[in-house]
C-alpha cells in the first residue's frame, strides 16, 4: 500500500492504527469505523472485494474489509472489532456497498455478529432453528443433530437499531405482506442450476420482490479448513466451484505461497495459466450448454457438451481428473504435463474456433434467443460495482473488473489479450461476454503453449508448512469472477481463519435488483446468464 494513502487515512481517522503484518491493515475502533467507511466510499473506494467475519478469541469478534478503488486500483484493508462476546454488535456498511448485505448476513450466521441498521438480519446459510454460531472457536457441534422437520419460511425479518441512550432495539421488517402473491422456486428446480431457492412475489407476471435463500449446499468448508494443514486444505477448494477447480486451487496456492514468500518457477506459472484458461473454456462451454437448455434449445446443449469433453480429455491426461483435477500444489503442480499435452491442446484450439461459429449459427442468431435475451435483466455499472458482481456479469455492464488485468498473476502479465467489455448489461451482453472470452482464452493458450519454459514443475517444500503470522489475500480470475482467498495465520500448521471470496454470492445479491420488474419467465434467462454455481455461493 502506498504511503500517500496511508497518510491520508491516518489524517482522516487518527484512531486508525496501521499494522505491518502480512498484507498490512488498519485497525479502526468500532465507534469510529462507520465515519471512515463513509469517507473512503466518498474517496472512490467503491468496490468491497471481500468482507470476512472473524473470531479473535479474547479480543472479541470483528470484521475484515478489503476495499478497492475501481478508478485508481488502490487497495486498503480495514479491521474493526468488538470485545463483547455475549452480544457482539458492529455498524453495518450495506448502504455504502450493497454487497455487504449478504456478506454481513453471512457474518451474522457464522459468528452471531449483529450489524446495526442492516435491514435484514436473518441467517444466510443455516436453518433458523440452528443453535449457536458454527465458526466461533468455542462452537459445540453436538447442539445441532440432523433435523428432519421441514422449515417454515418466515415473512418477516429483523433489524437492529441503536437508540440515542445506547440501547439496541429490535425492529420487525416485513418481507412479504399478507396480500402478496408469493411463489416458491427451488431448491429442487432445474432452472436454478443446483439447489438455490427463491421466493418471488408476483403481480400478474411481473416480479415485485425476490428473496433468495441460500445454504442448501452449505458444506462448512471454511470451518473445516481451520482443522486441516495447509496442504490438506487444497483438496476442498476444487469442490467449491467445480467449474473453476483449477483456478480456485490456484488462488489458494498463490495465497499460501505469498504467505511463505515463495516464488514458483516460470514453468509452473505457464502451466497454471494454461490450465486456468482450459478450465475457463470448459466452464463457458457448460454455461452455453445450460443456458441453451434452459431456453429450450436442447441441440445446443449436446453441442456444448460434445466439445467440453475434448477439454476434459486434455485435462484428464495430465492431471488424472476430469472435473476435479486437484492439480496445483503449494510451490508447483502435482505432475509434469503429459508428453501429448502440447499437441492435443493445439489440436483443440484449431478444432474449437470453427465450432464457435457453429454455436453462433445454432443459437446466437436465433430469433427466440435474441428476443428473450436482448434488453432483459439490465444491471448498471454502478450496481455491478456496488454488488461486487465481477466476472462476465461485471464486464457485460462495462466494468473492467478482470483480475488478470487488475492484478496480473502467473503468466498473465506476459500475454496479450483483450478484456471483453460490453456496456448494455443485459442478458445478451452477459452471454456474449462469455462467448467472446472463449476466443480470448484460446488466444492466451496459443501464445503460451509453444513457449513453456524448461525447469522444475514442483519446488521442494517442507513437509510441514507454517505461514508466518499475519493475514494474506490473493485473488485470481475464476470462471465467473474474482475468486479470492483470505488466510489469517498465527504461525501454526493450521490456518487460524480461511475465507473464500465466493464469486457467486455477489451474483445472487444482485439478482433482486436485476429481476425486479421483469417477467417471471425472464428469471430463467437472468439466472442462466449470471452463471452462478451454487456450492460456490454456499461454500
Amino acid at each position, binding site marked *: 500500500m502506498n504511503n500517500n494513502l496511508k497518510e491520508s487515512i491516518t489524517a482522516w481517522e487518527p484512531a486508525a492504527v496501521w499494522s505491518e503484518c502480512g498484507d498490512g491493515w488498519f485497525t479502526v475502533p468500532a465507534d469510529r469505523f462507520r465515519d471512515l467507511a463513509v469517507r473512503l466510499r466518498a474517496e472512490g473506494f467503491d468496490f468491497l472485494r471481500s468482507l470476512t467475519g472473524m473470531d479473535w478469541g479474547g479480543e472479541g469478534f470483528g470484521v475484515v474489509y478489503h476495499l478497492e478503488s475501481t478508478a485508481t486500483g488502490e487497495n486498503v484493508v480495514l479491521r474493526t472489532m468488538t470485545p463483547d462476546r455475549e452480544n457482539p454488535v458492529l455498524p453495518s456498511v450495506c448502504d455504502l456497498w450493497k454487497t455487504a448485505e449478504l456478506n454481513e448476513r453471512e457474518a451474522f450466521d457464522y459468528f452471531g455478529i449483529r450489524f446495526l441498521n442492516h435491514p435484514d438480519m436473518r441467517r444466510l446459510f443455516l436453518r433458523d432453528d440452528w443453535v449457536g454460531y458454527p465458526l466461533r472457536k468455542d462452537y459445540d457441534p453436538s447442539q445441532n443433530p440432523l433435523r428432519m422437520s421441514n422449515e*417454515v419460511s418466515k415473512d418477516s425479518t429483523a433489524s437492529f437499531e441503536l437508540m440515542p441512550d445506547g440501547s439496541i432495539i429490535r425492529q420487525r421488517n416485513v418481507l412479504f405482506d399478507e396480500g402478496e402473491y408469493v411463489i416458491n422456486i427451488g431448491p429442487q428446480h432445474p432452472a436454478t442450476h443446483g439447489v438455490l431457492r427463491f421466493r418471488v412475489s408476483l403481480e400478474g407476471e411481473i416480479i415485485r420482490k425476490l428473496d433468495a435463500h441460500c445454504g442448501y449446499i452449505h458444506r*462448512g*468448508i471454511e470451518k473445516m479448513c481451520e482443522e486441516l494443514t495447509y496442504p490438506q486444505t487444497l483438496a476442498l477448494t476444487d469442490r467449491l466451484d467445480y467449474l473453476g477447480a483449477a483456478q480456485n486451487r490456484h488462488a489458494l496456492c498463490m495465497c499460501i505461497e505469498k504467505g511463505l514468500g515463495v516464488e514458483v518457477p516460470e514453468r509452473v506459472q505457464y502451466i497454471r495459466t494454461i490450465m486456468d484458461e482450459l478450465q475457463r473454456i470448459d466452464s463457458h462451454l457448460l454455461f452455453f450448454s445450460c443456458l441453451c437448455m434452459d431456453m429450450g434449445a436442447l441441440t445446443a446443449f449436446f453441442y456444448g457438451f460434445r466439445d467440453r469433453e475434448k477439454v476434459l480429455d486434455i485435462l484428464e491426461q495430465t492431471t488424472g481428473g*476430469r*472435473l476435479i483435477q486437484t492439480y496445483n500444489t503449494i510451490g508447483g503442480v502435482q505432475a509434469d504435463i503429459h508428453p501429448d499435452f502440447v499437441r492435443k491442446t493445439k489440436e483443440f484450439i484449431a478444432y474449437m474456433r470453427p465450432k464457435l461459429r457453429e454455436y453462433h449459427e445454432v443459437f446466437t442468431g436465433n430469433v427466440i434467443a435474441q428476443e428473450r435475451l436482448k434488453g432483459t435483466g439490465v444491471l448498471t455499472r454502478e450496481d455491478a460495482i456496488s454488488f461486487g458482481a465481477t466476472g462476465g456479469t461485471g464486464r457485460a455492464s462495462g466494468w473492467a473488473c478482470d483480475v488478470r488485468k487488475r492484478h496480473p498473476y502467473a503468466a498473465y502479465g506476459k500475454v496479450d489479450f483483450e478484456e471483453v467489455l460490453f456496456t448494455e448489461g443485459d442478458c445478451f451482453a452477459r452471454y456474449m461476454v462469455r462467448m467472446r472470452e472463449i476466443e480470448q482464452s484460446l488466444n492466451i493458450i496459443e501464445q503460451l503453449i509453444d513457449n513453456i519454459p524448461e525447469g522444475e514443475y514442483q519446488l521442494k517444500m517442507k513437509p510441514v508448512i507454517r505461514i508466518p503470522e499475519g493475514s494474506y489475500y490473493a485473488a485470481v480470475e475464476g470462471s465467473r469472477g474474482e475468486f479470492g482467498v483470505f488466510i489469517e495465520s498465527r504461525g501454526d500448521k493450521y490456518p487460524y481463519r480461511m475465507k473464500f471470496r465466493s464469486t457467486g454470492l455477489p451474483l445472487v445479491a444482485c439478482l433482486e435488483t436485476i429481476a425486479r420488474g421483469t417477467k417471471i419467465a425472464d428469471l430463467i434467462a437472468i439466472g442462466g446468464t449470471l452463471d452462478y454455481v451454487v456450492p460456490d455461493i454456499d461454500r
Partner: protein
Amino acid sequence: MEVRNPRIKSMKYEDFNDNEYIESMVRELRENGTNVVVGCLDEVIEWGRSNSLWPLTFATSCCGIEFMAVGAARYDFARFGFEVARASPRQADFIMVAGTITHKMAPVLKRLYDQMADPKYVIATGGCAISGGPFKKSYHVVDGVDKILPVDVYIPGCPPRPEAMLYGLMQLQRKVKVQRFFGDVNRQIDRKECEELLRRDLTAEKNELNVEKDANHEQ
C-alpha cells in the same frame, strides 16, 4: 509431495465381470418352482420397467455435473433408457443423489423422495452421498444419504467417472429385473407393513407438514 506406494482399496477387477450373480441366483430360484404363467408375466413387466427408468433431475453439486455429462453427447445414457429426466418427482422412477446432502437439504430430499410414486429407487452417487465424502467432518453435512433414504446402489468416486455411473445405473437395472424375488427392492418392508404405514398416514392427525412446533419461533 509424492505419495509412495499408494494402496488403494477398491473393488477387485475380476468382480466387475461378475455381473450376472443376481440373475443366476434368480434362475436357480425359478428352476425350483415359481409359477410359470405369472412368473413370465412378471419377467416381462420388470424387463420393461428396468429399461425405461426415468431419473429425477436432482443434483446438488459436483457429481451432478458428471451426471449431466452422462446424459450428454459422449456417454449418452439414452442408450439404456434413462434419457427421460424428469423435473417433477411424481413422474420419476429413481432419484440419483448426486452431490453433498446438507442438514438444510435433508428434509427437502426426504420430501422429494416421499413425493415419488412407487416403485422408486435411490442411487447414492459419489463419496458425499455415500458417507459425507470429503466433508464428513463438517458440521452441516449428512454423512451418507442412507441415514435418511433406503439406497439401492452406491457409486463410489469423487466424482465417479461417467463410466462408473453407467455401470451403477446398469446395476440398478439388474436389480429391478429381479425385484420380485427380493421383496420390494427399495422399501425392504413387506406388504403388511406397507399397508400399515399407509393406513397410519391416513388416520394420523394432520401433522402440519412435519413442521416442528416451536413456541419461541420468533426468536
